[in-house]
């Protein structure tokens, strides 16, 4: 049974190969067929009405982008744990209700504290 399970992933492997072949083929084709031009560094520089750039582009970023990304990852990890729970919930409810229901309630309850903290401290407030 386990042996069959792994073959379910054969399409994923085929997809991977097709994707790699497509990208490789496109790159190879454009290199082989495309016109050959010279590329001096000046062609890659930022272009603004003919003025030469005086400093690298991009100034200081607000930290809020980073904060939202971090909080997203933390909640993402929490949700990952809920997926196996959802799969086994129904079949375990009959025999091991305290573990499968109480366990997840505690888990979500603890995370709720973190969520409340983030909300009340204005971590999701985009203007802050």
């Amino acid at each position, binding site marked *: 049974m*386990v042996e069959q*399970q*792994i073959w379910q*992933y054969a399409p*994923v*492997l085929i997809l991977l190969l097709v994707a790699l072949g497509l990208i490789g083929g496109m790159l190879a084709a454009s290199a082989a067929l495309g016109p050959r031009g010279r590329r001096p560094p000046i062609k890659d520089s930022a272009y603004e009405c003919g003025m030469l750039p005086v400093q*690298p582009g*991009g100034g200081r*970023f607000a*930290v*809020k*982008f*980073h*904060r939202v*990304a*971090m*909080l*997203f*990852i*933390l909640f*993402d*990890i*929490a949700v*990952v*744990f809920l*997926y*196996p*729970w*959802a*799969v*086994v*919930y129904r079949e*375990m409810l009959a025999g*091991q209700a305290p*573990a*499968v229901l109480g*366990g*997840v309630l*505690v*888990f*979500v309850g*603890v*995370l709720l*504290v*973190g*969520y409340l*903290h*983030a909300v009340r*401290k204005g*971590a999701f407030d985009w203007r*802050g």
Partner: protein
Amino acid sequence: MQDLLFYVFAAVALIAGFLAVANPFSRNPLASALFLAVALVAVSGLFVLLHAFFLGAVQILIYAGAVMVLFLFVIMLLDLREEQKRRARKVAAGLASALALALAALISAAALAGGGPADPPALEGGARALGRALFTDFLLPFEIVAVLLVAAMVGVVWLSRKEAA
């Protein structure tokens, strides 16, 4: 077939991992991050070969997806030109390489010597098996992980707070 795939994924993971750390062609941190993503995808393939299907999917979702985005994000915030100019110190790089080689040799020796248990645990890592394990044997670590995530959230909120004053 599975053995062949193992060697392919392992080779990809190793080469991409090496290129992420010591890329001879480019000093661009973005290249390192993308090679790290390739290594993570290859490791996810190894997980699937080990029947850790759920872990393989999560590896792609969280690491190759979310965490890599965060990495790229931070790299974009930094000044890339400064980083590209910086050269690793020869002595430090040499020491680190020697240590890494020694560690690799030690672990390879251990793996080649083998000596696993007489009755290895069954290979099963689907979402169902994982869910059962999580809510029977590993209930306590599971709950502690929730506390760990809250601690991390409090830290993120505090460290990224805009200064009131």
